[in-house]
């Protein structure tokens, strides 16, 4: 994929009219969470406490925070994999109590089934949803094209590079056309150059699908490059300590990462992270 390819701008987010995906707003309202106690303890300290966030339809939100700040836990709550101990998660105004077909999730690891071909992995959610075989293979192939994976349909995952496997995982998450895509540091295992290329590819996928995205990342540069809104998550369950709107037009190019205003935004995010880090000590 060409890292510097430019794409025509359609609206503020640069979205083209994608397939019939109803973008669903996602909200966390006063959400707290503690893991169930173990080892004889009566309670565990909270991982998240009274956290609220809103993801607007079609918006790209990045969550940054230090290790242990609960980013991945928050993503699992947003995916319906964990129930909040207090507060609620809403998708399109409805309370989320379990995983929902309107939400797609990409984990830090590709989690492809090693005994299935790439195309059968991408078709896996469709198979679970009861799609007929012809329909799901056609959709899976469409999704593989969307993420730029061609000619590997019948390969087993272990024959692909790490980046290709992660693309296949994104294709799988998009197969059921979710209104919301949750990404848990999907590119953390990739080298810096590949990661930059994948960020451009992800922006393009997002523009084509019109899906709302929540991206958990450690990389401030990645968050600023991709997101409409960067949320800084506090250490020690203090919730969100900063909310930074990213004003850049779409499509964004890699060169913009060197611009002075990008550096200014990065400094703001870093400052929020450092303040929080100091407060925790």
């Amino acid at each position: 994929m060409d890292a510097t390819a430019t794409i025509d701008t359609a609206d503020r987010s640069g979205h083209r009219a994608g397939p019939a995906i109803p973008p669903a707003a996602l909200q966390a309202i006063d959400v707290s969470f503690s893991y169930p106690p173990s080892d004889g303890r009566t309670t565990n300290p909270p991982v998240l406490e009274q956290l609220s966030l809103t993801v607007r339809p079609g918006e790209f939100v990045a969550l940054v925070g230090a290790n242990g700040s609960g980013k991945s836990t928050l993503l699992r709550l947003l995916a319906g994999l964990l129930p909040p101990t207090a507060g609620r998660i809403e998708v399109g105004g409805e309370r989320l109590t379990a995983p929902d077909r309107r939400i797609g999730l990409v984990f830090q690891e590709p989690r492809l089934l090693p005994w299935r071909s790439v195309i059968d992995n991408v078709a896996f959610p469709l198979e679970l949803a009861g799609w007929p075989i012809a329909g799901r293979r056609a959709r899976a192939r469409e999704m593989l094209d969307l993420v730029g994976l061609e000619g590997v349909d019948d390969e087993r995952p272990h024959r692909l590079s790490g980046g290709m496997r992660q693309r296949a995982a994104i294709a799988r998450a998009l197969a059921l056309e979710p209104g919301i895509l949750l990404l848990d540091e999907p590119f953390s295992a990739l080298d810096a150059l590949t990661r930059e290329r994948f960020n451009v590819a992800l922006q393009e996928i997002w523009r084509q699908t019109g899906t709302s995205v929540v991206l958990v990342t450690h990389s401030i540069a990645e968050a600023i490059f991709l997101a409409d809104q960067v949320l800084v998550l506090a250490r020690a369950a203090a919730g969100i300590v900063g909310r930074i709107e990213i004003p850049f037009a779409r499509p964004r190019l890699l060169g913009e990462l060197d611009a002075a205003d990008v550096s200014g935004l990065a400094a703001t995010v870093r400052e929020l992270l450092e303040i929080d880090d100091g407060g925790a000590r």
Partner: protein
Amino acid sequence: MSVDRSAIGGPAARRSGRGAVLAVVAGAALLVGWKLLTVIGGYPPFVLPPPELVAARFVGAWADGTMLPHTVTTLEEVLLGFTVGASAALVVGYALARSTLIEEAFSPYLVAAQATPILALAPLIALWFGSGILSKVVICSLIVFFPVAISTMVGVRSVDGQLLELCRALRASRRQILIRVEVPGALPSIFGGLRVGVTLAVVGAIIGEWAGGDTGLGVLINLARGSLFDTPLLFATLATIAIVGVSLYVLVVVIEGRLVGDRD
């Protein structure tokens, strides 16, 4: 983008070809050693027959129809016993893997049952179930059960928890998780148990036939060493049992190759 195709038809195929050659060479060396032993030791044929005499008796027993009905009987017992024992073991192994309660309640008894020699139980089983095929099937099932149950338990437990979380995120039902993830994920381990189980099933059938029966390769061994006093036939029967065991093992390996396939 790159795809690793280096493993296709490469070193693995070469290793397989080299393995076949080595097996033939080792077999030939064994036969030569056996022949030398009979020549140097000067043993009479009723103690240690030379390989060519055993080969002639083997061909003769198959040609005159002595071996076939016994082999068919033993094969029936093995296949039935293996199927029953392995099927029960798959269910119990899964239950052991997924229920701590069941594991804690039954594991000690399973291990105790495995530690009890089947040779000691065989006469009792023949007493309870008669000298027909049923007692042999029971013995085969019992001997197959433990390795398959344990390998199933280990295999199901070794299924990547991250894949199970993925299934939850994709709203998979319990049945879908079982059929599409847990069973395929556990297959390599399950087949490890089936490989052991199928060879043990042959041993079980022979033990069952010794404990009581009219036909079968175990019965033929008894006849050959007893009333017939035909040691070359005894060796030919042992060779047939070995061929049955190896053939069934290879069959399991072939099925394993088809079902497990190419995975990391």
